[in-house]
């Protein structure tokens, strides 16, 4: 007779150093798995960075809007509401998944008890039971409509949580009969396998719905501006001749969750500007003792050797009198003027360059190979370039800059997006967008200057 201790020892001795060569393909799987993990880690880093940037942006934007008009706050609240709704959706999904799991477990329990009472249930029978229990109930109902519905409907109550003991007994009898018809059972198994496969596929599709997109776009940008000035300022101001056509472009990162909504950020470069010429002022009414450039009063700061003129977008500061401009101590018909008057046909060009970090919400109207979506949101704009050129017969020369420009500005954007899938991952997009600045570019109290731009952003988007 053997003691327990001996049995343990015998097993231990024989199996402690037991070795078996695993299949050769495993190593390849492991090494590939490791490479995939590294990629995933990198992706997670990008995701965290993206979310952090978006949150920071939302915070800055929210803070800014709180200090501004109420209608802007309403826009912010809308964004917040949407985010909250999203969070709710996720909670619901999570709890649904949990309850699903519980149901499956309960079913398993039911089956396992039944299994234990059966005398000949080998591994094969177990795996079959298991396969049945994994199936969700709605799928079972679908099955019941198949040609083998008689057998299936006999299996159906097994999945029910509340199946009574009597049911179980009758089921067992039925199952015994079923065992006699091996061919029928086989076809049931096959169908179960097919259904499982379908469910896995459906799950995969669901998973694919949360995804990231990166893209690059360029666009010509047509500029305009809404401006107002104090009367004193406006009476001595260069006349804005035309808005400029500029270039915009950048890279975008988009996070897509679900079928309809996605959040987009990125970095864009955006050029804004305007050209100005002579003011409409008639020099016959020129103020005595004042300096004039392009018929506009010039404030001369002799100590800094700089000249300041009022423009639509705020005062511009010239570091020198531009080449090709005429500097006259007096003009024939205006010889009563003691000061210098400069008259030219030159044009002033003001260029403002911004880096834009957007936070857009997108809503898909049509999602297929050809897709249409709407987008709207806010952007932080950082001033990175501020230049003043004079353009004339002798070409264009850099002469100074526009004064009192804010470093940070906020803009709102809305637009439409048309997308065409070139491949599964790559798509071409054309997006007409309208952007308007929410606050004045100039901090000068006499000037309110809010540009707007219209552009058609064209580019490629890659999805992964």
């Amino acid at each position: 007779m053997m003691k327990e201790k001996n049995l343990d020892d015998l097993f231990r001795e024989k199996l402690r150093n037991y070795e078996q060569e695993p299949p050769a393909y495993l190593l390849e799987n492991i090494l590939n798995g490791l490479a995939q993990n590294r990629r995933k880690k990198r992706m997670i880093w990008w995701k965290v960075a993206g979310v952090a940037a978006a949150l920071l942006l939302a915070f800055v934007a929210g803070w800014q809007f709180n200090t501004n008009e109420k209608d802007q706050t309403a826009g912010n609240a809308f964004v917040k509401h949407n985010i909250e709704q999203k969070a709710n959706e996720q909670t619901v999904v999570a709890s649904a998944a949990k309850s699903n799991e519980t149901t499956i477990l309960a079913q398993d329990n039911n089956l396992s008890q039944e299994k234990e009472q059966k005398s000949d249930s080998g591994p094969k029978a177990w795996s079959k039971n298991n396969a049945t229990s994994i199936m969700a109930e709605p799928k079972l109902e679908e099955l019941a409509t198949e040609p083998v519905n008689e057998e299936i409907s006999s299996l159906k109550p097994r999945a029910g949580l509340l199946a009574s003991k009597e049911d179980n007994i009758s089921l067992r009898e039925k199952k015994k009969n079923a065992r006699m018809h091996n061919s029928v059972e086989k076809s049931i198994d096959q169908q179960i396998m097919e259904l499982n496969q379908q469910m896995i596929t459906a799950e995969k599709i669901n998973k694919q719905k949360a995804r990231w997109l990166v893209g690059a776009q360029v666009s010509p940008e047509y500029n305009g501006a809404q401006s107002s000035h104090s009367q004193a300022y406006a009476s001595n101001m260069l006349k804005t001749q035309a808005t400029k056509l500029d270039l915009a472009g950048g890279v975008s990162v988009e996070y897509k969750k679900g079928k309809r909504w996605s959040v987009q950020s990125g970095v864009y470069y955006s050029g804004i500007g305007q050209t100005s010429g002579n003011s409409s002022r008639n020099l016959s009414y020129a103020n005595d003792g004042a300096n004039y450039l392009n018929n506009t009063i010039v404030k001369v700061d002799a100590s800094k050797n700089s000249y300041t003129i009022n423009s639509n977008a705020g005062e511009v500061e010239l570091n020198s009198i531009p080449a090709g401009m005429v500097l006259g101590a007096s003009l024939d018909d205006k010889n009563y003027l003691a000061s210098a008057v400069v008259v030219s046909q030159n044009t002033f060009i003001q260029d403002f360059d911004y880096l834009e970090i957007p936070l857009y919400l997108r809503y898909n109207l049509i999602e297929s190979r050809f897709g249409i979506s709407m987008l709207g949101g806010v952007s932080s704009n950082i001033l990175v370039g501020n230049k003043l050129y004079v353009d004339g017969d002798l070409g264009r020369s850099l002469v100074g800059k526009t004064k009192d420009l804010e470093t940070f500005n906020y803009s709102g954007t809305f637009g439409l997006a048309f997308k065409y899938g070139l491949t599964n991952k790559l798509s071409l997009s054309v997006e007409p967008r309208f952007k308007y600045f929410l606050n004045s570019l100039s901090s000068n109290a006499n000037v309110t200057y809010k540009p707007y731009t219209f552009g058609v952003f064209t580019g490629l988007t890659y999805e992964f």
Partner: protein
Amino acid sequence: MEDFRALISDCIAGSRKAQAKLYHQFAPKMFGVCLRYAKDSTEAEDNLQEGFIRVFTNLKSFRHDGSLEGWIRRIMVNVSLEKIRKQYLLYPVEDVSVFDAVNVSDDVISKMSADELLKIIRELPPRYQLVFNLYVFEGMSHQEIAKEMAINEGTSKSNLARAREILKKKVQENFGVVKAKNNFTA
């Protein structure tokens, strides 16, 4: 032990060659461990694969104060445990069948091959298989097993006893001089 230091640091640096070398060093033995915990060889392969991915991912946290083999083995056991928890242990499997005490002589087991012993361990109901493995091969106490599996100590003890009974019976049935006439359930 000392030999592995260079290999480990190469693995951490991401050298596929070093990773393959480390794998070949331990894979056969670890496959043996995984086979003992799994219900079939496919599951054992899965566990071995996931275990080694975990080994390579966490290799930098391996402190050289213990044996590398022991460390890797622990990871394999953990992976197997997690898999079993997901698959079976979420619901209780209490054996309802009654066994008669079986007498088996030591000789019979001594004559059995490792493969045959492995086979009958794997035929145990999942929870008995797990308790038997943890107690006999990992040297865990019932208290530790109870904690690991979130069951009480009494259950662990009775599971072990039941596992032993089934194993004896299997030995008797398959390899004993007198074959048992009655079938038993597991």
